């Protein structure tokens, strides 16, 4: 910059630090609460420094769950969330990359119709069609199953568009050269397009994993069997303990566990995450 304004730089740092602190505050409070025994919560206000019960609390929720709310072990919920998130991420990428390939590289009847059918899903988030979608899943006998948790969320216009846009930027010469060398459409896809799309796939995977992990409404509807509860919706059930104050120390330990995997993904794969987020909105 052409000018030097030290006070403004100091102010900028101060504002940013304040922003970072406010961002971190809820997590700090949750972490502190998750390290205390249950009776420190009854003293009238939450403590501000960690207590000594961290290992016990986390071991309890992972192994046996929150007793007061009669919940299943959080370990099982973590597993369910992981399976659901992976199925959604992998499934979305797989079906949309082949659909985009067909739409870009082939001419076939109803190609435009297919394109528009996929395009329309962009406008129909699951929240606006919950009852009828639930009806379909129930009649297909997919309630309380990993398929029911993931398949209805798998169709995605955004992923298909991302791959379509990317394929359109791939030079024509590559397809021509492949054809002259005698490669068929499947070989061209596997040996040329897939390796070229690697970064896009990885970036999309990061975004979709977070999307899948954080699903709330859908798991709430299709799981009545506790064995299929995912962690994000499981927390809500823990808050509904019938008789007393919720077991805050255990609920906060569960919340920490629910946040950990997607937050780690964002922090450690930040470059891919930023790329995925920005590409998705183009």
């Amino acid at each position, binding site marked *: 910059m052409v000018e030097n304004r030290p006070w403004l730089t100091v102010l900028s740092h101060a504002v940013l630090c304040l922003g970072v602190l406010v961002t971190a505050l809820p997590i700090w409070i949750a972490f502190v609460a998750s390290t205390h025994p249950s009776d420190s919560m009854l003293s009238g206000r939450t403590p501000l420094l960690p207590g000594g019960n961290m290992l016990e609390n986390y071991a309890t929720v992972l192994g046996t769950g929150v007793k007061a709310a009669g919940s299943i072990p959080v370990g099982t919920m973590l597993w369910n969330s992981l399976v659901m998130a992976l199925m959604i991420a992998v499934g979305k990428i797989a*079906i949309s990359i082949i659909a985009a390939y067909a739409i870009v590289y082939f001419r076939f009847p109803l190609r435009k119709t297919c394109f528009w059918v*996929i395009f329309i899903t*962009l406008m129909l988030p699951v929240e606006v069609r*919950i009852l009828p979608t639930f009806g*379909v899943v129930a009649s297909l006998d997919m309630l309380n199953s990993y398929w029911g948790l993931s398949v209805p969320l798998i169709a995605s216009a955004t992923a298909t568009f991302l791959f379509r846009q990317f394929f*359109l930027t791939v030079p024509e010469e590559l397809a021509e050269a492949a054809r002259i060398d005698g490669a068929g459409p499947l070989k061209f896809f596997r040996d040329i397009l897939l390796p070229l799309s690697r970064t896009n796939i990885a970036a999309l995977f990061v975004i979709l994993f977070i999307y899948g992990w954080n699903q709330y409404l859908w798991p709430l509807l299709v799981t009545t069997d506790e064995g299929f509860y995912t962690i994000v919706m499981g927390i809500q059930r823990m808050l509904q303990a019938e008789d007393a104050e919720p077991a805050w120390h255990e609920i906060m330990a569960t919340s920490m566990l629910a*946040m950990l995997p997607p937050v780690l993904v964002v922090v450690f794969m930040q470059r891919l995450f930023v790329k995925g987020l920005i590409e998705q909105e183009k």
Partner: protein
Amino acid sequence: MEKRVVFSKLGLPILLVAPQIIITLVFFIWPASQALYQSVLLEDAFGLKSEFVWLDNFIALFSDPHYLNSFARTVVFSAATAGLSLGVALFLAAMADRVLKGATAYRTLIVWPYAVAPAVAGVLWFFMFNPSIGILAYLLKGIGYDWNHYLDGTDAMILVVLAASWKQVSYNFLFFLAGLQAIPRSLVEAAAIDGARPFKRFWTIVFPLLSPTAFFLLVVNIVYAFFDTFGIVHATTSGGPAQSTTILVYKVFSDGFIGLDLGGSAAQSVILMAVVITLTVFQFRYIERKVAY
């Protein structure tokens, strides 16, 4: 844009698009058309027979004070959430764009709440504001305000707005920062040489250049506040107290699954679909989507 070089096979492409088309038809198009169909039917309490009632369900909705109240709540909630998270994010991004050292570190530290599920974000703020043990409720009591989101509708609304905004700031910050960094330095420097002070430079040069990003984010934030915040409301206030936080998407759920009013819930779904379609079309038509990143 079309490819010149294409493969000419028939079976293969059909096979390749089939999975996506089948899932779309079964889980998107069919349920959506069911919602449309049910929204013009009136079913009796046992689901035995249904009657075609034209637009009666919609008329009933718009003459129902609860629904109109829910509409108003949604507008307040969306405006507050979008305003707060956009404002804070723009302010932080402008500051982060200024500092040369540590901008990446700040980005990491501000961006991670994006990964937190809305429902979990809601629970965290719910805990901090808990009237009996929450730290923020305790501080508010210290300055003489008796916080209770179980009884006071305004407190409950503030709670969900704060939780929703806390999570959304990260996303807006990322896009604002990318937008700011794409603005040519030479423009800002020329203005500085002409004697424009930082504040003036921001409003007369930086902000107008940033407006495509800002408009795009505004639409994304409204969509977020309308639909993705279901988890926050459901996990914390459950729409209460006295329906003060019953936003539209929560009402579709509670009328459909708890109230079992199929026609009414379907009509609400149709209205929400209309809202999404309007926002999407608006975004495509009137907003330059190719924001400079």
